[in-house]
């Protein structure tokens, strides 16, 4: 009986407290993670699994020498973060990001894409 009571308590606690938002995972990106694109993009767009806190989310794009090629401030809307990039010559570029989901969970990551024929 005590076990049943505890189990019911746990279940009711879960139900009454309600679900919130979780960590924001990178769902997909444009250009796609690890991809090779023929035409240089004018911006990098990241799509997340949760809505983001704009004040604590950021993105950097750099070339193979580590020089920044992003320009302007990141624009964040709901679960999407985008930043403009300079005219990109053929080469490999690294995107580094960190975001805070709306419930204060922090996640981060980085990936590369290549511009070339």
């Amino acid at each position, binding site marked *: *009986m005590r076990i049943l*009571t505890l189990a*019911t*308590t746990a279940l*009711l*606690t*879960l139900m*009454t*407290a309600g*679900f*919130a*938002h*979780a*960590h924001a*995972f*990178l769902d*997909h*990106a444009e250009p*796609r*993670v*690890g*991809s090779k694109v023929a035409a240089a993009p004018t911006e990098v767009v990241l799509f997340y*699994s*949760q809505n983001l*806190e704009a*004040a*604590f989310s*950021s993105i*950097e794009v750099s070339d193979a020498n580590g020089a920044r090629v992003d320009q302007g401030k990141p624009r964040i809307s709901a679960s999407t973060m985008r930043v403009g990039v300079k005219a990109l010559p053929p080469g490999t570029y690294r995107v*580094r990001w*960190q975001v*805070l989901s709306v*419930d*204060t*969970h*922090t*996640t*981060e*990551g*980085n*990936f*590369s894409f290549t511009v070339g024929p």
Partner: protein
Amino acid sequence: MSRPLLHTIALAGVIAATCSSHALAHCFVGARFLPATLATDDPCVADELSLPTVGWSKTGDFPPASELDISGEISKRITENFGVSIGQNWTSIRQADGTLTQGFNNFETTFQYQILKDREHELAILSGLIVDWGRTGSTGSGLATNYSLVTPTLYFGKGFGDLPSSFSWFRAFAVTGQVGYQIPTTSFDFTQNAFVPQQLVYGASLQYSMPYLKSEIIDLGLPDFINHLIPIVELSLSTPVANNFGNPYTTTGTVNPGVIWVGSYFQVGLEAMIPVNRASGTGVGVLGQLHLYLDDMFPSTIGQPLFGGTSSPRKLTF
């Protein structure tokens, strides 16, 4: 409405209403997420609930008996880096002649302290002290002992995402492991009329993260279900090392190939349990687990450390 049910509802309401503040993570180390492993433990303190973990196997006896284990464990951060886990396991053993033995094992608590989380190198190190409290289970059935077991344990986890990009898809691999030294509080068990050995208890996992592959290395456009999978092989072993007079120093344990599906709020794991030798079991067993991320489900309530919860959010530096 019955009185116990009223108590239950009242308690649930109090818990939900009184817990407040905000949250951080389960086992994230930089860009790496290390899932909760089934046979061993992950290298992070966290707010999480494993309920249930169900295992079925055949023992190494002649003839073998069927063993069913059902367990639950809740882990709670006391501070940001210090956590406590409480677990209980129920066992049912059916002998070949039909004899049935059932009952609870001893109550287990684990105290853990996060020594290191290196984001750049996806490295986590955790220290712990596992205590199986004697006389808290079904001692009459022989499934629990009259003495306690104390096991200082070191845990680690390492992702290979910091390898050069030329390693490409290999960077999605990660390893975790633990090594503990189990010390019984008595050297001789008078009920079994046998020495109680000190044991080395150790294990490891090798895992390949499809979520990591997709978000950090290459997005292959695979189905969403596949992108949530972490194929894994676990190894869980114990070896008597002292106070084992007259008995063989045989290592026992299992190799567990399987897979973990990782969601935003929970994960589901399923593994085969392959005995490493005849003393470890007979045939292939099965181990399954539902694991809830309490810090994601309730980030402003029970998913927070009890003391010194996360202060205001901070912007990380690259």
